[in-house]
């Protein structure tokens, strides 16, 4: 079973990368986009199938390692195996 953790910067936290990307986009002529933020994804493949267990474990992983909860938010998404 595959789980995707989406990690984004908390509202109000500066995202210099997003700003630099937005500048480049507008230099390339893309002017319809007025805000760019960046985030991370971590894709985890579990060997077990118990959804509840997977979610509980992923949460623990996020809090203890994957996410810098000082400046980042996260959400967990379950994906069907393809």
């Amino acid at each position, binding site marked *: 079973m595959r789980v995707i953790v989406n990690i984004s910067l908390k509202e*109000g*936290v500066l*995202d210099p990368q997003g700003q630099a990307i937005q*500048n480049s986009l507008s230099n390339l002529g893309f002017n319809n986009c007025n805000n760019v933020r960046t985030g991370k994804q971590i894709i985890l493949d579990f060997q077990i199938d118990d959804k509840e267990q997977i979610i509980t474990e992923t949460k623990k992983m996020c809090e203890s390692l994957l996410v810098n909860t*000082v*400046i980042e938010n996260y959400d967990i998404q379950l994906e069907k195996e393809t």
Partner: protein
Amino acid sequence: MKVLKKKLYEDNKYEYMVQQESNLETAIEMGLTQEEFNFICKKIKKTPNKTELGIFSAMFSEHCSYKSSKKWLKTLPTQAPHVIQGPGENAGVIDIGDNLAAVFKIESHNHPSFIEPYQGSATGVGGILRDVFTMGARPIALLNAIRFGSPSKPLTKHLLSGVVKGIGGYGNCIGIPTVGGETNFDKSYDGNILVNAMAVGIANKDKIFYSAATGANNPVIYVGAKTGRDGIHGATMASAEFTESSSEKRPTVQVGDPFTGKLLLEACLELMNTDAVLSIQDMGAAGLTSSSVEMASKGSLGMFLDLDLVPTREEQMTSYEIMLSESQERMLMILKPGSEEKAKQIFDKWDLDFAVIGKVTETGRLILTKNGSEACNIPISPLVENAPEYDRPYEIIKNEKFIDLNKNIVNQTINEILVQMFRNPNLASKKWIWEQYDCSVMGDTILSSGQSDAAIVRIHGSDKDDSLGKGLAITTDCTPRYVKANPIEGGMQAVCEAARNIASSGAKPLAITNNLNFGNPEKKEIMGEIVGSIKGISSAAAFLNTPIVSGNVSLYNETNGNGILPTPVIGMVGIIENIENSLEINAKEGNTLLVLGQSEDFIEGWIGSSIYQEIIHDEFDGAPPPINLQNEKAIIDILLNLNEQKLLSAAHDISDGGLLPNVCEMLFRNNLGLDLNLPKKLVNKSNKDILLHSWCFGEDQGRIIVATNELNKVKSILEKQEIKFFVLGTVNSSSNLNIKSVTTISINDIKYIYENSLSSIMS
């Protein structure tokens, strides 16, 4: 306040609300005391609104006002003919000849780095760099003095790895080499790490920029990155003790943007090359508040700012937020009227915000408007000149216990102790750290981490056809366990070790910046540590003619009432007229090693508060090694003298761990060996004899090991000058350090431990 804060993001009527009057309760929530609040009301002849109170609270915080330390900082020696600017500006400035000046300062970012190690340390580096280039100097080197808790704790690893990444992340990206530093571990830093960053720059002596505002009606300019809601009230956070609930303060971390930092650096230096800038100040702690107040106060003028003109990153920011935001990479400048357009072009070229946000006034007041109405109107002088200054009670506690060798039973051999020492990350190589730092960008690094006792950076362009050029030598030093045992001796020791390190690299010590890291000054024994260290630093700095030109104080480094070891870090800068004479620590085959400052009669080494003691007894105790300033000065002078005559090929001062580990360090690089001479009285002692151990591992001060190929010449000079010395032996290619009839130490084996201890802890 909490309810209001929550509303802040939802309710755009907040601006109206913050202009409401405050009361004592709000003042206390902002970190002010009742007396301070009453004082403010009296001085400004009204009850401040929340913006005004926020400005007072930031300016009165320990971080900005130095209220606990000011009385004592004034006692530091700050004068010398070579000092151009002492403490009080963004950075200290000294004359280094050829119409050039060295500009440098050290600063702490302890609390933010504990909360968010990467961003906390990165913004620390960014901040100290701005302090240096604000003065018109191009930064040429960075150093870092960092301290962590027990190395075995997972939290320590997390913090260390984050801090090192953050320091490197900023310094590497902005392209200024990180050339040295120091790293210590002690359980007292478990809940309170120290991250002190030092920057050194070079400016033309007649193009130094200062922060004092000049000329009523001159335009006030905001440049750099946009203002966001980051780090609001960071200065008060830096002045508060940590408690369990300080995690609530987390969203206040600032994010560093070294890319914008680089653009700001280049743009400012380009602008400073014109005649447009009258005064300039970076926005550091307490952002726009401290920069505007300090500029106005130093010029004895007032300032008017229209906060609607401040470039902001987020919507509906209130005057309170704009004034207290600690967004990074921003500067405040006062320009010569009429030069705005020229200046703007430069900032446009570098894609940076540029805005005229107000003007200098003669009112002596800080007046702010927001949405067309007045948001703040307060006199400036009480913010600075009348900021509280405490004469806190203190008690200097000295551990005067003499550690009696005869009562120490040893059951370990010299080899076993050496292995434990080099396994200890305090003594092990810090290569894992410094390899993450770009040490050679800018092309002028001559010697950096691990190569010599002080880093040497060439003064750019000083190399001409006929000369390889001159350089600055830079080091940071402090031995907190000595300071704990005796703040005065410890303070002196930090200065002396720094000076010895500078001299051991072949350079002449010139001046000091210092970072005083301590616990809660409201406790009289901690205040005693502060006062004692300052006394020690003062006497040594005065004696060695290395005045203090800048510095920083970080107090309340406590978690749940447990203070850190007192840590007054000394950053020292020296000069070497000919970089060809720089000295590494690595000895070469055929060199003779001798210790300056130690005689044949010396056999009983100083064990009190030594690393040896920690290994044998698992704790530090006893008086620290005493400092003799005359001796220190004498060996520094003689070393420089010998080096000028090109009689030396390496040097290393004896510090942590004592003589033997420091001899090993000189042999590591080239995998060399040595037959070590012992004083006659020690010959035939056993491998576990306490006296022999104390000779090998005692931490007596005032000693430097030098390597020479001209033993006879050196000897005769030393004898003539009546300098004590002891010949240790001649370096050979055997890779064995042999102590005759006692033991043989394999340099390769020990080196392996030395080089890999820290990386194996970290992986």
